[in-house]
C-alpha cells in the first residue's frame, strides 16, 4: 500500500490555508468572499486492539450562493499506511435557504488502485436540525455509487453536545480490487459526545459502528472488513 502521507499533508495544507485568503465584508456594498475550514472529525479509533486515525474535514471559499468546497476523509492505520483516503473538489451552489447542490470530482487515493468519480450531490440542513447530504458518484469504470449521510446535534447542556450520525453507502458494480461488491456496501452509525470549549474547539469521545452489507459482507479476504466493527474513539472537532 502506498504511503500517502505527503499527499495527505498537501490536503491538510489546503484545508488550513483557505481561511488566509478570506476577505471579510467591508461594511456595506460588499458581498465578500468568506472562507471556512473545519475538521469535523479528527479521531483515534480502536477496535479489537487495532488503532487507526480517522479524519473528515471540509474547507470552503466563496459567497453566500456559490462556493468552492474541498472535502476530505480517510483512515490511517497504525503503520502509517492509508486504509482509505478520499478527496472531493466541488462547486457548491445554493438552491434554497438551507440546501446547496454540489458538483465536482472525487478522488479515492487509497487503497490502491486509485479511483476517480464525478460527484453530484445535495447537502443542507433538513427540518428538525438534521444535517443531510446525498451524493451520487459516477465512476470512470462506469460504476455508480451513492452515499447518504445524516447527523444532528442534541444539546445536553449549552456546551455538551451529543451527535448521532448515520451513513449509508451503495454501489452499482463490483470492485474486487477494493473488496467492494454491487449493492448496499456499508452502514455506519456513530454517537459522539463533544464538549465545546469554544465554538471552534471541541474534544469528544464516542463510539462508531460499521456493518458491511450485501455482497460486500463476508466476501473477499476480509482482512479489513469484519462483518461488523464497533470502535471506541477519542477525537477533536476543530473549526478555523
Amino acid at each position, binding site marked *: 500500500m502506498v504511503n500517502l502521507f505527503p499527499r495527505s499533508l498537501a490536503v491538510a495544507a489546503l484545508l488550513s490555508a483557505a481561511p488566509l485568503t478570506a476577505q*471579510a465584508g467591508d*461594511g456595506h456594498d460588499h458581498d465578500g468572499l468568506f472562507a*471556512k475550514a473545519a475538521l469535523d472529525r479528527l479521531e483515534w479509533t480502536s477496535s479489537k486492539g487495532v488503532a487507526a486515525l480517522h479524519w473528515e474535514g471540509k474547507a470552503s471559499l466563496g459567497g*453566500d450562493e456559490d462556493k468552492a468546497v474541498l472535502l476530505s476523509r480517510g483512515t490511517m492505520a497504525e503503520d502509517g499506511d492509508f486504509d482509505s483516503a478520499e478527496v472531493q473538489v466541488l462547486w457548491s451552489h445554493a438552491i434554497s435557504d438551507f440546501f446547496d447542490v454540489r458538483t465536482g470530482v472525487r478522488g479515492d487515493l487509497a487503497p490502491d488502485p486509485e479511483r476517480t468519480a464525478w460527484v453530484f450531490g445535495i447537502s443542507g440542513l433538513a427540518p*428538525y436540525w438534521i444535517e443531510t447530504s446525498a451524493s451520487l458518484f459516477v465512476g470512470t469504470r462506469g460504476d455508480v455509487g451513492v452515499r447518504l449521510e445524516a447527523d444532528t446535534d442534541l444539546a445536553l447542556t449549552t*456546551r455538551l453536545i451529543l451527535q448521532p450520525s448515520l451513513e449509508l453507502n451503495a454501489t452499482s458494480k463490483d470492485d474486487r480490487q477494493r473488496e467492494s461488491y454491487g449493492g448496499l456496501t456499508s452502514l455506519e452509525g456513530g454517537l459522539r459526545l463533544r464538549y465545546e470549549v469554544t*465554538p471552534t474547539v471541541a474534544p469528544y469521545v464516542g463510539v462508531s459502528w460499521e456493518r458491511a452489507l450485501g455482497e460486500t459482507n463476508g466476501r473477499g479476504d476480509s482482512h479489513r472488513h469484519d462483518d461488523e466493527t464497533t470502535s471506541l474513539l477519542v477525537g477533536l472537532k476543530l473549526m478555523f
Partner: protein
Amino acid sequence: MRFSFSGTAAVLALSCVGWALPTIASAGQYSIVIGETETSVTGAPQKTMTLNGQSPGPTLRLKEGEMAEIAVTNTLKEDSSIHWHGLILPYQQDGVPGFSFQGIKPGETVTYRFPVVQSGTYWYHSHSGLQEQAGMLAPIVIEPKDPDPIKADREAVVMLSDFHPDAPNDILANLKKDSGYYNTAARRTAGTLIDDAGKNGLAATVQDRLEWGAMRMAPSDISDISGYTFLINGQPPGQPWRSLFKPGETVRLRFINGAAMTYFDVRIPGLKLTVVAADGNPVKPVAVDEFRMAVGETYDVLVTPTEDQPYTIFAEPLDRSGYARGTLTPRDGEDGPVPPVRPRPLLTMTDMGMDHGSMDHGSGEMPGMDHSAMGHDMKDMAGMDHSAMGHDMKDMAGMDHSAMGHDMKGMAGMDHSAMGHDMKGMAGMDHSAMGHDMKDMAGMDHSAMGHDMKDMAGMDHSAMQQPSSPPPAAPGTVSADFKASSGLVPSAANGGRMLQYADLLPLTPRPQTAPDRAMTFRLGGNMERYFWTIDGEKFSTAAPIRMTQGERIRVTLVNETMMNHPIHLHGMWFQVVRSDGQDGPLKHVLNVPPGQSVTLDILADALGQWPFHCHFMYHMATGMMRRVIVDPPASSGQPATPDPVAFPGDHNSHSQHSGGSHG
C-alpha cells in the same frame, strides 16, 4: 479655528464625574481626529477606534442655525468616514462612502460643511466597514435656536453601546462560518426540555420543539451575537459612569443607543422617567417606568430625584445577556443597588409571523381577536381561561351598536354579523376607544385589540383584576409596537408603564397629509447563511429605490424574519403612522418587530442618494440596505439623478471641503 475638541479636554471630561463637555462652541468650526488606541474595557487590551482619542468620542455640540464646518482627519491606515446620524443635510455631507463621497483616505482631512437646521439629541459614527463597532461613535447635542421647550436644571448624555472582545471583521467571518457561532449560550438543551415538560406537559413541549425544529429556528434566538459587554459612555458595569445631581433637581438625560447589535430596556429604579423627546424631536411629556431603545434611537428623558441617594441607570439588552449600568448620584463615588437581570425571553409564533392559528381561533367569539394578546394584558391573572374571557365579552351590555357598525365597515375580511352578535351583550364599553381600534382591524392589528381590552369598563372585575399598567396616553396605536402576543413584548420590571411608540405625540406636530403613494418592502434574511435582504435582494444586487422630491410615501415594512430590525433612513424623516389619525412623531429609526408589519411615512424632501438600512451593524453589512434616490419632480425641469449616481467629483468635492487639507 475657534473651537476644537482636544484630547486634553476629553480626558478632563472623562476624569470628571459626568461626561458632557461644557458648551463652549459659539461658532461652527469643529475638528475631529479619527485614530486608534488600545483600551482595556474588559481587562485585556483591545484595539479600539477613537474620535479625538476616546471612545465614544466627545459630544459634538452644535447650534441650530449655524453653518457647521467640521474638519475630520483620518489617521488610520484604512479609509474612514463620519456620518451624522439623524441630521438633515445635503446628501454630499452625509458622510457615507459610495453615497455621499468616497470616504476619507488615510492621512486625509475632509471638512464637512452643512447648515444646522434642527435641534436635539443625535449621534455620529463611522459609516465605513464595521468601524462603528470598533468604537467610532459619539453623541451630538444641538442647542435650539429658540428657547428650549425642555427645561432642566442639568443634563447629561447617556450613550449606550456594546463592546465585543472579538474584532468586528472576525465577528462577521465567524457568523458566515456558523451563524450560531455566538449563540451557543441560547441553545435549548435537555435541561430546558425537562423544565418545559415539567411546566407545560410533555406533549405540549414535544409539540413546541417539533414546531420550532420544523422551521430550523430557535425561540431563544433573540440576538445574533453574544459575548458583549454593555457600556454607558464607554464605561463597563464594573466601573459605572456616574453623573451628579442635587436632590430635587430635574436632570435631562439624553439617551443614545449607539450599540451595533443591541436593543436595551432602560430604567432607573425609584424614578419616573418623563420622556420629552424621541430621535431629537420633542414629544408631549409622557411619564413611564421603563423604555425600550432600538439601535440608533435617541430618547431625552427628564428625571427628578428627590432622595439624597444614588440611583442606578439600568439598561438590559433584549436577550438579557448582561446589563449596562450607570449612576445618578448626589456624591461622587457612590453607586446604587444593581437589580437582577430578568430571564431571557422566548420568541412566540407571532414573532415568526405565524400566529394565524390563534387568530382564527379567536374569531369564534370576537372576530380578529387574538387570545394571546388578551392574555398579555391580563398577565397578572393566574390561571385565566381564555374561553371564559370570551364569555365575559359577550355579556357586556350597553354598547353603541351604530358606532360599532360604522367603524367595522373598514375591516377587511371580517365577518360582520358574527362580530355584531358577539358584542351585543357588552356593558359599559368605551365606545370611542373601541371605534378607533376597530378601524385598525383591517390590518389585523392584534396589539390594538389588546389595548382596547384594557380600556373597557364594566368588565367582570372579579376575573380581571386590575391591569398592571395604566392606560396609554392616547387611544391610537402604532404598528411598530410589539404585538401583545410577541415573546418580546416589553413590560416594565416594576409592573408599571413601559413606553410604547403609541405614547409618542409630537410637541409641534407636522401635519400628516394623505400619502401620494404606497410602497411595501419585505425584510428578509437567511439565518443559516447569515445574510439579510430587502425584497429578497442583498444590497450588492439590488436596484435603487426611486422617489420624487416632495412625495409622501406610505411605506409598509413586512418583517418576514424572527429578528427585530431597527430601520433607518438617512437625510429624511420617517413620520410614524398612528391608528387614530393624530399626527405621528418624526423619527430617524423605527423598530420593525419580528413577524410584524409596520407602516410609516417617508417624507421624501431631500434630493440625492441616501442609505435606507437596518441599523444592526451585521445586518447592514450582509445586505439589509438599499440606496434611495430622490429625484427632482418632473415639473422642475431638472434631470433625474442618473443611476448609479456619480459621486461628487473630486473637484466639486474639494470645493465643498474648504478648510480641509487633503493628504
